[in-house]
């Protein structure tokens, strides 16, 4: 029997390797071309790539800051202020949207017809309209049309609501911050509600029956038996909702809340440093996403069934 090799173009191994080389080659060619264009275009604009501009004076003011900042500080300080503002929105948003979402998700399964349908209407309205529109609505149609600070609406005697935002006795939330966080909470909450509902429905019926036959009251049954098991299904999609919320907080720019995207965009407008700014933004959001993923994955591990 002759052991003649098949021609090389009939050999699958050859094509596998050649195909990958081709992919690398094509990608390299495209990237070189794009990079060449970029350098040529930047040269024409008279811009040289580099991060030195971060040390220059920012000379723009930021509406609200948690740390000390004034316009004579550097761009890097301004971006830092923006990042802290973003974190503030993300933390508040994640915390409250979880509360709203879990309540609405449980409400969707309530045996009270009214509760069930009110939460259904809530979910269907907020999920099916754009977040940007909701933010614009909260800000312009709600907060800006509140009465002036002199005759503010008083809630329970100690919370004051006016055009200047929400006043608590010990601190005040700006209208921009309030509108952004409220918008994010109700939008993300509607998505979380559906995730929670799906998670609870995925727990086998037998668990309910077993809990009931042990004499557990509905509230306790939900807290001790059903919800911990539902969490296993809930957490992975919940994590992506938290990531979405964090990324969506960049829509702050539409209503003028100075988050990191807002500050970065001002920085770009003043310096023309598109490439550097977008790289910084990418890095920032990447780190934020990584932190959320790591925390949620650790939490996820604690609720999974421990197996040998």
């Amino acid at each position, binding site marked *: 029997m002759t052991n003649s090799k098949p021609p090389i173009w009939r050999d699958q191994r050859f094509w596998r390797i050649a195909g990958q080389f081709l*992919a690398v080659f094509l990608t390299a060619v495209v990237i070189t071309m794009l990079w060449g264009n970029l350098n040529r275009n930047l040269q024409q604009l008279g811009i040289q790539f580099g991060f030195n501009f971060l040390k220059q004076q920012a000379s723009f003011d930021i509406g609200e800051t948690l740390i000390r900042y004034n316009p004579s500080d550097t761009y890097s300080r301004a971006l830092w202020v923006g990042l802290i503002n973003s974190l503030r929105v993300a933390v508040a948003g994640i915390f409250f949207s979880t509360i709203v979402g879990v309540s609405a998700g449980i409400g969707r399964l309530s045996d009270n017809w009214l509760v069930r349908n009110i939460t259904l209407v809530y979910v269907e309205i907020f999920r099916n309209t754009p977040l940007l529109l909701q933010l614009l609505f909260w800000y312009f149609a709600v907060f800006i049309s509140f009465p002036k600070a002199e005759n503010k609406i008083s809630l329970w005697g100690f919370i004051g609501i006016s055009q200047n935002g929400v006043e608590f006795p010990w601190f005040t939330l700006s209208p921009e911050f309030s509108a952004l966080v409220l918008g994010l909470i109700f939008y993300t909450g509607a998505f979380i509600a559906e995730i929670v509902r799906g998670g609870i429905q995925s727990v086998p019926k037998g668990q309910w029956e077993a809990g009931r036959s042990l004499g557990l009251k509905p509230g306790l049954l939900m807290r001790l038996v059903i919800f911990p098991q539902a969490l296993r299904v809930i957490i992975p999609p919940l994590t992506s909702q938290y990531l979405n919320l964090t990324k969506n907080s960049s829509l702050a720019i539409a209503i003028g809340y100075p988050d990191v995207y807002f500050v970065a965009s001002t920085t770009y407008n003043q310096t023309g440093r598109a490439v550097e700014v977008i790289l910084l933004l990418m890095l920032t959001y990447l780190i934020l996403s990584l932190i959320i993923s790591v925390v949620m994955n650790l939490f996820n591990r604690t609720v999974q069934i421990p197996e040998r």
Partner: protein
Amino acid sequence: MTSNPKSQIQNPKLAWLRNNLFSTWYNSLLTVVCLVFLFWLLLLIFTWATTKAQWGVIQVNLRLFLVGRFPQTLYWRTWIVLAIASTLGAVSGGVFSSKQLLTKRTLAVFAFIVGLLLIILPLDLISRLWLLLIAVLLFAGFGIGQTFSQVIAPWLSLVWLLSFPIILWLIGGGFGLQSVPTDLWNGLLLTLLMAAVSIVLSFPIGVLLALGRTSNLPVIRWFSILYIEIVRGLPLIGILFLAQVMLPLFLSADVRLDRVVRAIAGLVLFSAAYMAENVRGGLQAIPRGQIEAAKALGLNTLLAVILIVLPQALRAVIPAIVGQFIGLFKDTSLLSLVGLVELTGIARSILAQPQFLGRYAEAYLFIGLIYWVFCYSMSLASRRLERQLNN
């Protein structure tokens, strides 16, 4: 639900109330709280809508909201586009609905709604006639789709694809028609167009990326992973900024891209990454045996993927893909932040006119309703389609 033997003897309406609203003391409390809340909310909305709100901003600007500054003499072209799209939509709806929906009652409801719309909408005679024609086309299309579903079904996607360039031609002009520059495509027209184009373009790219990510060629897999994860890590507005500002920098100086084209590029780049993850879910759900069986029949890898794996994978993730479409439709609103005048953009520009200053609630509620109708009907259609395919 545990049914109380007593309640079965009573009046069924009372029994329903007892079971659904007042089964325990805390349910009764919840019911009362909800009723008070609902009453307060509805009263608030009703008094605002009838006394404070000035709906003139909608009435005066209806055309702007729908088609923006599209030349008025060329409206017939947008009407034809609407007619084509709604007929195709109705035919597809007819093909995929199993139940005999064309009963006398649904017909009466349909006719009533059309009549009501024709009367209350502030339109001229010609627009009313067009609307009437479209209503008839909708009705006829649905009937045709339902009666000849076996014959039409295989051609449906092809017809949709073919209609696409025709619609673009009608809107954009050229080839014998007067051309309309893209900065005159505004309002709902632009929203729908951007969403449709981005969906159609991002779908094949997303499928390719998903295949790349599940491929066993390491280089291709890593490129796909890199792309998908970077894009999913960035906010959409960042991607749109990238497309508007950076794309021209990356291209050579003699290539000039339209603002609308750049925006579409951004949306497609963004949406393809998410689409890829949805499709990947479907690919992972296909048992290995399917590929092995296909190989055993002598199909090569490419044919096995196209003929055996992909159809099953895509079918498995229809809900996720429709969810993605809904998300993309909502996301087109962000284009108003990079200077495009789609539905949200036109609302912003109308609200900047001095005579409509401060009418935010009216305008935003109105366009919110438009977004809601489209998104909600998409999700309803997807649920129905899913049930159909599971049978």
